[in-house]
């Protein structure tokens, strides 16, 4: 590995470093080739086991969910779309009545549902169907058995992972109140169950016992929030959720994101430092997995070092990914696209990202494709719509969506994460046809 100083978790509350704000960001506005926030339901409905996501939308929304998720779902999913029809557009009263009818039928069929999200879409937003009032009205009817919340996953307001942000932000006001003196750590953002369990064990090993996760796996085990809550973000796209948590008195612990060995160490350290864990307990807890991560990464460094990288905007994971691939694997990011740049969250990441990488925010897909073709990167990270056509042009691609559907955070997944990038290249060299 390049001998570099380990990334530090900045201390809580410190201002955005100048080096991060000083970087030029290429801002683009044009055609965006990204999913809308509805797509987050694909993993959220699996994470929260007694929640149901009812999209109030159009046939397009249902078809999006089917096309993006159809390949992967084989248990009866806990989501569905109430498809609006011509008569629902005629008058909002009727639309509300229809919604009540659909909810009644759904809850009757699925008595296991404890938490129902009414999820807004572009059409429901445009006709101004007020889902927050609908949620209130229905909550009054179905509580305490079922809690009913709402958020928007519409494409006119949310991009891909921002749907999870909106969902979690809608949950925050409903979370129980923690006693003011309770000092606890809250990890926010959907993680694979196996990763969550690993992190919990690490925190326990270093002596941090009061650790909660949002979202929890069940509606009735959601975390309690109070002024003593300190938040580590497990995912980078949680701008609104963090704001909502701050309104409840919680504080953010700025840190890089837990991708790769360094990222994971710095992320854990941010919590350890805040909670006054002593260095030796911290070191003892992380030593074995950290070494495993280093060992696992060594293999991929050989294969990937020096390879160039181009990331199209998708999940907001792009900057942390590029940082990891650059620092720990020795790859060269050429352009790192992100649909939205939260400068405060990204400050610890951008500090570490090479100055030669162009960071772009937003998208004009045709122009970005031109830049990508000019740059001829060794690996292009892009969405499903673009991957095969770029392969045809001779570029090697990695689908970005796999990065949100695969456990990649933490020490024991660091090697897996690197492997995701090695595999397309290995495949290219293997094939003789």
């Amino acid at each position: 590995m390049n001998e570099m100083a380990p990334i530090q978790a900045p201390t809580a509350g410190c201002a955005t470093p100048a080096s991060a704000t000083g970087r030029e960001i290429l801002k683009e506005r044009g055609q965006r080739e990204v999913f809308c926030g509805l797509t987050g339901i694909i993993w959220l409905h699996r994470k929260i086991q007694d929640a149901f996501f009812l999209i109030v939308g159009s046939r397009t929304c249902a078809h999006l969910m089917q096309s993006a998720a159809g390949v992967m779902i084989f248990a009866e999913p806990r989501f569905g779309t109430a498809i609006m029809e011509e008569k629902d557009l005629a008058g909002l009263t009727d639309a509300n009545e229809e919604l009540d009818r659909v909810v009644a039928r759904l809850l009757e069929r699925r008595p296991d549902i404890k938490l129902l999200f009414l999820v807004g879409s572009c059409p429901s937003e445009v006709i101004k169907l007020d889902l927050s009032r609908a949620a209130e009205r229905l909550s009054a009817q179905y509580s305490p058995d079922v809690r009913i919340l709402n958020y928007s996953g519409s494409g006119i307001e949310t991009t891909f992972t921002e749907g999870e942000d909106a969902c979690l932000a809608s949950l925050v006001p409903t979370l129980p109140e923690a006693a003011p003196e309770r000092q606890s750590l809250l990890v926010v953002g959907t993680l694979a169950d196996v990763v969550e369990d690993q992190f919990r064990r690490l925190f326990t090993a270093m002596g941090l016992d009061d650790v909660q996760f949002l979202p929890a796996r069940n509606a009735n085990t959601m975390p309690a929030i109070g002024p003593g809550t300190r938040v580590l973000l497990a995912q980078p796209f949680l701008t609104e959720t963090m704001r909502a948590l701050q309104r409840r008195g919680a504080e953010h612990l700025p840190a890089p994101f837990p991708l790769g060995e360094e990222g994971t160490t710095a992320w854990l350290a941010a919590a350890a430092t805040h909670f006054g864990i002593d260095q030796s307990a911290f070191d003892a807890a992380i030593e074995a997995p950290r070494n495993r991560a280093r060992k696992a990464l060594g293999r991929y460094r050989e294969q990937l070092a020096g390879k160039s990288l181009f990331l199209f905007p998708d999940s907001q994971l792009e900057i942390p990914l590029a940082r990891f691939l650059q620092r720990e694997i020795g790859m060269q990011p050429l352009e790192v696209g992100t649909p939205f740049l939260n400068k405060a969250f990204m400050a610890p990441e951008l500090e570490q990202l090479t100055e030669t990488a162009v960071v772009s925010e937003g998208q004009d897909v045709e122009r970005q494709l031109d830049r990508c073709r000019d740059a001829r990167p060794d690996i292009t990270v892009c969405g499903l719509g673009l991957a095969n056509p770029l392969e045809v042009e001779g570029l090697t691609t990695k689908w970005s969506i796999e990065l949100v559907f695969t456990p990649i955070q933490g020490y024991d997944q660091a090697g897996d994460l690197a492997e995701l990038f090695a595999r397309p290249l290995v495949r290219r060299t293997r094939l003789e046809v």
Partner: protein
Amino acid sequence: MQLTVWTYEGPPHVGAMRIATAMQGLHYVLHAPQGDTYADLLFTMIERRKARPPVTYTTFQARDLGKDTAELFQSAAREAYARFEPEAMIVGASCTAELIQDDPGGLTKAMGLPIPTIPLELPSYSKKENWGAAETFYQIVRTLAGPNAPEPGTARAALNDSARPKANILGPTALGFRHRDDVIETKRLLDQLGVDTHVVAPLDARPSDIARLGEADFNVVLYPEIAHTAAGWLKRTFGQPMTSVVPIGVGATQDFIAEVCALIGADVPPALSPEASRLPWYSRSIDSTYLTGKRVFVFGDATHVLAAARVADEEMGFEVVGMGTYSREFARDVRAAAKDRGLEALITDDYLEVEQAIIDAAPELVLGTQMERHIAKRLGIGCAVISSPVHVQDFPARYAPQMGFEGANVLFDTWVHPLVMGLEEHLLGMFREDFEFSDDNGASHHGHSPKRPQAPADGAVFTDEQPIAVTPPAETQTADNTLLAGPAPWTAEAEKELKKIPFFVRGKARKNTETFAAQHGLREITLETLYDAKAHFGR
């Protein structure tokens, strides 16, 4: 409002995309929010097309709404024209843009582009994908071929004896079930009948080809759902007759041949007897006896359902115990065909109703779409796919038409053999603890145990003839036969962790961990050993 999880058809603008993507030299400017760009993956991933669909989306956002979405549309159209230089453009709105009423047609017209621009009115809240495809194709044909129409009332010139007659093949689109191969088979058939193929459309046609559709002597309507409207207009406008038989199955192929021969005034060539297909002999051979009276349930688009029901009865010796379609536009034909069999057709686009109908009919084989494949898997019934919507494995690398004599061979094989499918199931790996992901369920592709409580209690038809099982889950294949020297025992915690690993790699993880433990002389496999081994072996 209709509550749904899976849908048979997308919105009508996806139908328009199927036309645009099938054609060359045509571009579609679609007023739509960013999320609607998902539709590209249908073509690039599911159909593995090599180029992106020729579609520019305006991807307007909430902040554009009160301001100028119309201007946004025009600049998108202008840039698309400059970049792609199409010969013609179709313009329209998706469901959201339909609500903001920007009038893409009018806006484009006002721009005065030097190419034909074709406005599409596709009502998203009442119509669906196939209707959208048919309407789009019709508008394109009308706009581009219309200028070449003869004076109304002009009689059609009689067929000229010295030249070979010419036919257009209408209906094949992008993302169509086996359209690519059906076209090849149909062209070959026409050629054997002495007919030249004039234009195939929309698949691979350019706007300039559409303009010369009227030159052909007649039209072959390959997929009525897509081409019926346009062919009807061509008949009225150019006096071109059209075929009514879709050549799926041996009998229908013969009828199609007879229909074409009548249209061109020729005799049926002797080479085109039923023996041109292997199906008749395979079906008569004695090892097919077990197929007799096999109960089948048929569901899909109208064209494929009507054809499949006939093949099932007349050519396979099955018994159709239920049939239906999601194509409401053609419901009447399907109702009539069901009635002939003493059945009542199921006309619905609610897959739950279809599931219930399948349970009630207790078939031994389901011929359907990808939705019925899911249902059949859950119920433990064999299934073959005969109609859109379909998935990536239904775009096979090999030549596999449904039409013509070769198509009949394909039908025989695919209906008789069990389906083998398989795609990785990422979510399974992510959320092991989800109670619905009980290991006994396995993947829908691999599992074959009925899981649904709705399965009839007597269960007979669901259990006595399970589809011949596909590969068992990886674990049972590999896990236990490696335990030669008696591996170190697993702690409960490690065993539990192992269960969180997706079943299709779990066997390998177990084996690697045990090998690792043996190599290092460990007496017990702990959680740490599991991850140490994982780091040691890589993935």
